[in-house]
């Protein structure tokens, strides 16, 4: 079974969603979701695991940005050149 198979893909996405739901409940504490993490890692190819981890980080950052929870000095560093 490989990623070409639709059933394989769907199982991978399911384990990923379960893992993410656990993280949501436990405020990103990875220690509390180790079992689900193992299931996730065994159901998906390594490149996909990395990809989904990056996606999660990005989604969380976007959410924080929208809610204004990001520290302003972090934002200053990514701001473009300012008029002086």
């Amino acid at each position, binding site marked *: 079974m490989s*990623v*070409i198979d*639709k059933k394989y*893909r769907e199982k991978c*996405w399911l384990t990923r969603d379960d893992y993410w739901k656990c993280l949501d409940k436990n405020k990103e504490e990875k220690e509390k979701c180790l079992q689900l993490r193992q299931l996730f890692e065994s159901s998906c*190819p*390594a*490149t*996909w695991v*990395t*990809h*989904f981890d990056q*996606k999660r980080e990005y989604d969380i950052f976007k959410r924080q940005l929208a809610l204004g929870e990001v520290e302003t000095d972090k934002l200053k560093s990514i701001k473009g050149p300012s008029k002086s």
Partner: protein
Amino acid sequence: MSMISHLFSIRATTCLTRNILRATPIRLLSSASSSPNKTTNANDHILPKELPSSEKRKAKFNISWKTVSVTFIGAASLIAFIYYLDQRKMQKRKVLQRAAVGKMAIGGPFSLITHERKPVTDKDFRGQWLLIYFGFTHCPDICPEELEKLSEITDLLRRDKSTQKNPFQPVFVSVDPERDTPELVSTYIKDYSPHFIGLTGTREQVAEMCKHYRVYFSQGPKVGDDYIVDHAIIMYLINPNGEFVDYYGRNKNAKEVAYAIEQHMNAFKESNK
């Protein structure tokens, strides 16, 4: 243009009202004169029954129904003419808009093989509407999502039988020529729709098409034998003449894309009657 038509309509209405006002006292006069035996002396001091010859001539010139109707017809035809000019201008603008999008230098010849190992070029698709999506079979989440969307668009457009003259053909093009053989592509696309055509080829062939279609793609870092291809997430609409018409990104859902395509199809039918 609308300013001028505004002025014209104002002028027309003032003309009209002036004529109506001119006409009414004469009507009053004639009605008064037609009332038989009531030689109302009261009227005499307002307007004489018998007008002096010079006045009579003037009165004849101002005879009501003729003047009013002529002015009215004149004003109406003027307004209609201005409306007609306005419509022509709108049409010209529409044609220019369409031409402007088509002039974007996107698209061009391509030469690949289908998922059934049949060699094809862009010319083989003339007479069909193509919606092309670029992706790869080892894609984690985005390509499956977009292909589901493409499948939904296909179902929506195939429902309408009137588009059969220029049928709608969804196309998947692989940007992973190293791994995506026709067999792999065939297995992959069958999971989404029986109507898809999958295209793949050599690295040169794929790079050539992506150059013409301004599609970025780049092999990511390898983990063992595996890698993810970074690529532009986009669908291109090509008309039956092989010309690029429109593009759709992740922000539009299936219904919105299908609706937009329908508009293009109708416009194409209109201009090719």
